[in-house]
């Protein structure tokens, strides 16, 4: 794993995440949100989970980010800015970050280097998905169907 690649991807991801969290204009924030997920997918590639990285690009950037852009377009008001920013949220976020960092640095077992592992193939993921994880797979299929039908019912126009 390359150290320079890690630093570049980390800077890109965190900068885009900060932009998505603090920009005033909605469209800019939604597009920075998509760039954040490009960075996270790059992290997945760096960690050797290429299939998850591609699934992330398809689902998050291709579906969720586009859904968010469409919703922004459908719920427009005159001024397309977000009024109001609650500063106590910044304090809570910094406090939580401090707590997590202190927990990470106190744990001894996480300062390990990466062991050399065999590459995770899509064939292996398919095997595991169909044998060990077949029940979660069916449940997720059911959940996605229910979510789709539910979302449709929520936005359908009422007749009359």
């Amino acid at each position, binding site marked *: *794993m390359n*150290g320079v690649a890690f630093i570049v991807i980390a800077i890109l991801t*965190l900068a885009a995440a*900060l932009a998505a*969290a*603090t920009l005033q204009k*909605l469209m800019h*924030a939604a597009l920075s*949100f998509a760039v*954040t997920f490009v960075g*996270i997918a790059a*992290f*997945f590639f760096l*960690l050797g*989970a290429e*299939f*998850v990285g591609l*699934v*992330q690009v398809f*689902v*998050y950037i291709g*579906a*969720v980010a586009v*859904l*968010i852009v469409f*919703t*922004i377009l*459908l*719920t427009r*008001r005159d001024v397309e800015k*977000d*009024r*109001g*920013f*609650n500063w*106590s*949220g*910044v304090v*809570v*976020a*910094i406090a939580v970050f401090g707590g*997590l*960092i202190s927990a*990470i640095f106190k744990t001894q077992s*996480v300062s390990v*280097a*990466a*062991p050399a*592992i*065999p590459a995770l193939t899509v064939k292996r*993921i398919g095997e595991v*998905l169909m044998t060990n994880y077949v029940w979660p797979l069916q449940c997720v299929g059911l*959940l*996605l169907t229910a*979510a*789709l039908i539910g*979302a*449709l019912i*929520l*936005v359908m126009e009422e007749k009359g």
Partner: protein
Amino acid sequence: MTLTLQLFLIVSAALFCIGLLAALSRRHAIFILIGIEMMLAAANLNFIAFWRFSPEPRQPAGVMIAIFAIAIAAAEAAVGLALVISVYRHYRTTNVDQLDQLKG
């Protein structure tokens, strides 16, 4: 430099806290959903990092959890955005401070 697990956990913690910042301090409903999605993605990064650095990576459990979490997050984002659109149709506002009719 050798990459340790600590670096990945620090990045994922930072991403989680930025998502928390977006979810807590914005007043627009869509920004809150963006923050929630960022928090879920940070947790996925955590799972994959732990899978990669574990001494027994033949079991792709971390990868499986991440795949299912991505699917569930997409379903939840779809329903959440449908709710935002539906609320906007009734009240013509997306500011969550003005949606307080259920307040006791």
